[in-house]
């Protein structure tokens, strides 16, 4: 007999029993201990059909295959670049993943990406030892020129992007700015100084109120009011 011990969307702490029974399955952030399904993170417990999963609310960015992230070049080697990913591990970008241009043998790689440059790239592979491979080949992946980079909580990035990018599109339109959101919690903003500040403030507002319902409408109202001024 399965017994679910939590309410849907309830905060659970590590070690807390979420359900007892063999017909429920442990999802992300949970594990099975005999009959019990136990939380192994602090998070929002959700019942999704037969699985019980935990949505993480805090913590640093954990690299995942397929994520689009913003990185900083920290080292240039013989056959690629080492990038800082805002996590515990750095990423490697090889020459063939970096550009479709022909690179002469022995060429100085700093002419493509120099130390301190920021790039938007995509994670293609993460090994069990957390070695990260990234690529620059894909739509929207590029070197960032100008603008400013801000840091946000990586767990709140989905809220900042919104459903199918609705939230970030709204900020872009209202502030006439260029924004790239990395899933590692780094956001690049390029706009006129006044609009840049508004975009940053809006993002901070979303970050602080990420838990409230109807956030898109609230932010829409906020932006309209600020732009009129």
């Amino acid at each position, binding site marked *: 007999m399965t017994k679910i011990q939590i309410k849907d*969307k*309830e*905060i659970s*702490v*590590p*070690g*807390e*029993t979420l359900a007892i029974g063999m017909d429920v399955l442990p999802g992300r952030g949970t*594990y099975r201990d005999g009959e019990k399904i*136990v939380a*192994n*993170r*602090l*998070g*929002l417990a959700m019942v999704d059909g037969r699985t019980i999963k935990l949505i*993480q*609310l*805090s*913590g*640093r960015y954990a690299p995942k295959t397929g994520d689009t992230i913003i990185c900083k070049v920290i080292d240039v080697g013989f056959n690629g670049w080492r990038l800082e990913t805002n*996590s*515990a*591990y*750095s990423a490697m970008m090889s020459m063939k993943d970096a550009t479709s241009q022909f690179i002469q043998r022995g060429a100085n790689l700093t002419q493509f990406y120099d130390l301190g440059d920021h790039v938007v790239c995509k994670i293609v592979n993460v090994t*069990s*030892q*957390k070695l990260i491979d990234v690529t620059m080949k894909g739509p929207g992946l590029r070197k960032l020129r100008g603008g400013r980079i801000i840091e946000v909580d990586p*767990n709140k990035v989905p809220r900042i992007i919104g459903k199918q990018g609705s939230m970030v599109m709204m900020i872009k339109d209202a502030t006439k700015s260029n924004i790239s959101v990395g899933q590692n919690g780094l956001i690049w903003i390029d706009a006129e100084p006044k609009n840049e500040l508004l975009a940053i403030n809006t993002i901070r507002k979303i970050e602080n109120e990420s*838990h*409230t319902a109807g956030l898109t409408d609230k932010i829409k109202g906020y932006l309209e009011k600020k732009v009129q001024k």
Partner: protein
Amino acid sequence: MTYKERIDGRKFDETRPIEAKVGVIKRADGSAMFKIGNTWAYAAVYGPRNLHPKFLQNPEKGLLRCSYNMMPFSSTGDRVRPGGSRRSKEISLVTQKSLNPVLNLEEYPNSVVDVFIELPQTEAGSRCAGICAASMALADAGLDMKDLVCAVSVGRVDDKLLVDLDYSEESYEDGPVADVPIAFMPNINKISLLQMDGEVKKEELMKLIEMGKKACMKIYEIQKKALKDKYKVEV
């Protein structure tokens, strides 16, 4: 003179008043505060992050590093000289060993999780308060863990068995005193720290451990509530 009742009027199995809060240090990845009577502990967790020196890196699992520090004017006696001491080094080590069993550090190879415990004021039971704060801060940092850790000191003063000794009880002079800090993992139901200072009989020790476990369960509820309160509006 025999020890009949506790100096501050508590029951023998009663802890000092406890207060806990999570998310007190903004720039840390996870943080918590734990106050038990006049002993205050603040813990900040940074990481998982890049580990240096590199020879400490372990490709099989991450490293947990703890630092326990009493602030210069935190104790009732002499000023504590700033910087590490033999005592703080030992307590840092036992804190790390008591927290290690709950953490799934295999998730974070080659990296480190740093825990800094600072004590602005202390009056006995500081390592236990530090462990309680650190375990909440680790959970707040979103780390993969099996359980929380709760800690309390139990002990014997004269012929009485007590929970959560304060300074006056630890330094009781008219009879034998034993001080036994315990750290307990409530869901796994195992003990992760058991130290002893003083003399105690085997039967008494067994009784003390049971008393400590009971007190830890109460502390666990307080820790759980503090963690949930941080996100209360989100429900």
